[in-house]
């Protein structure tokens, strides 16, 4: 507790422990994000300023609404102590309201509740969803890499990869360097989950903690990337996945496929010599195939790049350009790709994201599957002889 004791007899609670039945309360939290608005009262047209956003204390993140807030002094990252906060429940989650009775003042990081990693509940990877926080997981680093990004004025290094346990795999994005290496088993606490391209992503920062563990019961790193295929229907249900494997038959080809031109700066496809972002550019020729893969339960799009397209189609980019010079109709190339691939059985691994048109896979590997007809016939024959 702090030196200046609260004058009213409201309990100080951690955000994770908020209950609508215990109100008002005292909380300490960091402003994660906020927005200022004015609410017009219908009865007399009067305006009342409102500041609303997310407040986090490391155990949970909750929405808060602050009526008649101060004009300034509130920033992202500001830590507040609020006494006499109303707790309400909205759609099953607690929310905070700062009313005229609430006394709000600045606080320091030391006043945030001490989150003891040992008391955080263990969760499994499959169970994680935005905006979870205040949990621990034990997982294996499937892969990890780093890149430099520009955040505002700053250049920062972000470590990105995948971690997984027996239940699944989740994308990882760490703003702090924990020296992670692929294959390591780790216990992670103090991370939070956000939604990135409609998939959950585990985010770590300076406040997170990583401990190496033995991890004998965690799967082998290679196992994550070599998982047996699942039905496309299941993957549609789950909205994609970080490391999915599917097997199906090519039933179509979507535009743009074949010979495309890409912006030399951002790799976007160029239409009529114009990049969506960089305007008029000299496009760089590339080969791609957007395959529709169907397994009878669902269909998804495979964005095959140049190497895969060349291998599956059996013709190179140079060959495609030569053919185009001879017969200047790009749709013939598309037709030729479809003609080669329609009905081919493929096994594809990669990351799948879902939008309104379904799941799109950025493949890490595409293999042609040769069907063992004898084995297939034997398997089917056994099903006929079951006597049903």
């Amino acid at each position, binding site marked *: 507790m702090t030196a200046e004791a609260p004058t009213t007899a409201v309990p100080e609670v951690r955000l994770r422990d908020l209950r609508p039945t215990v109100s008002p309360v005292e909380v300490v939290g960091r402003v994660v994000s906020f927005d200022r608005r004015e609410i017009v009262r219908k009865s007399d047209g009067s305006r009342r300023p409102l500041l609303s956003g997310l407040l986090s204390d490391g155990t949970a993140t909750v929405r808060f609404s602050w009526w008649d807030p101060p004009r300034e002094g509130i920033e992202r990252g500001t830590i507040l102590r609020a006494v006499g906060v109303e707790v309400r429940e909205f759609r099953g989650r607690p929310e905070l309201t700062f009313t005229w009775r609430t006394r709000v003042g600045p606080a320091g990081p030391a006043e945030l509740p001490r989150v003891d990693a040992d008391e955080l509940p263990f969760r499994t990877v499959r169970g994680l969803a935005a905006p979870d926080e205040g949990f621990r997981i034990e997982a294996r680093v499937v892969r990890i890499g780093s890149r430099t990004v520009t955040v505002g004025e700053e250049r920062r290094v972000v470590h990105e990869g995948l971690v997984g346990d027996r239940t699944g795999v989740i994308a990882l994005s760490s703003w702090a360097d924990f020296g992670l290496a692929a294959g390591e088993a780790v216990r992670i606490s103090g991370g939070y989950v956000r939604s990135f391209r409609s998939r959950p992503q585990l985010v770590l920062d300076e406040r997170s903690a990583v401990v190496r563990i033995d991890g004998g019961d965690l799967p082998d790193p290679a196992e994550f990337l070599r998982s047996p295929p699942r039905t496309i229907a299941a993957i549609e249900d789950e909205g994609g996945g970080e490391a999915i494997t599917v097997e199906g038959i090519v039933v179509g080809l979507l535009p743009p496929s074949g010979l495309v031109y890409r912006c030399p700066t951002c790799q976007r496809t160029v239409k009529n010599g114009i990049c969506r972002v960089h305007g008029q550019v000299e496009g760089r020729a590339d080969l791609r195939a957007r395959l529709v893969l169907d397994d009878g339960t669902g269909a998804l799009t495979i964005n095959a790049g140049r190497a895969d397209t060349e291998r599956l189609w059996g013709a190179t980019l140079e060959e495609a350009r030569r053919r185009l010079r001879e017969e200047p109709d790009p749709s013939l190339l598309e037709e030729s790709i479809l003609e080669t691939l*329609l009905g081919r059985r493929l096994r594809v691994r990669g990351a799948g994201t879902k939008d309104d048109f379904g799941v799109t896979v950025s493949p890490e590997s595409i293999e042609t599957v040769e069907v063992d007809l004898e084995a297939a016939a034997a398997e089917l024959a056994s099903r006929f002889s079951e006597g049903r």
Partner: protein
Amino acid sequence: MALREPAWRVTARELETSLEEEKGEGERAASYLLSPFAARMNRVLITGTLSPAEPIGRDESQPFWRSRLTDPTGAVAVTAGSFQPRAMAQLRSSPAPRPAIVVGKVHLYRGRDGVGYVSVRAEAVRFVAETEERAVLADIVRQTLDRVDLVERIEKVPATGEASLVAEGIPRGWIRAARESLQRYPNVDRAAFRRDLRPALRRVAGDSGPVATAPLPPATVSVTRAPPSPPPPPPPTAAERAEESMFLDHLDEIAEVSADGYADLKELLARVATEGLLGDRAEAVLSRLEEEGVVEEPIVGKLRRA
């Protein structure tokens, strides 16, 4: 959210038995053909021997071609028009029956007599090697058996929860289709349908093509149109003339008593078969009569005098 419709793996036999529709409501809603065996089809993937295509329709600005896909369990009409230019070009490109894979949308046509005819409007067609045809057929038979099993399971224990089936890896779409099948086709002989699939299994195992070995199921006749005769056609012999006349007599008899004035192709072939005019030969007579403009088939499976 309009996800792409999956291509249901089905046999010609399953298409022949599918008579129930689910019409989509609202703008651009998909329609479905429901089979008795847990298929709720908008798009299908089929394989078999594709006969050379023939043009139908008189309007030259709206070309429309039709051929027949025969698999070991039955046959289905495959069509393509100017809205499927690639598929149409493929259909037209083949001068002789060849194994093919077809992806397309199912259509149910109901004649005035209420009889339904299923056809597949091709979106993509590829002629393939025999091994590829057998590989795709294996996929079709496996998934068909999986679906029949599912229908039987849900019939036995109607309270089976969707969640537990999904946990086993069964797609939600199949579960929904299985429940629809049980509701719409309460008295279906699934054992007979399994028997109908056996020839497909033999084909996967390597038996020669369906044209040669397909047994004639009672309700279905394997039909393969003869390739167009090379010009100039030799004059028909007297025996051929006799067959034609017998063929036409039966056609007239059937047409006279039918509700819509057309002669049903299946019925006609069954009748001429009793007079010894079988399979390919009956087909040859029919193509000759069609070429000479004596008989026409304005609707799939429906004949009349031109």
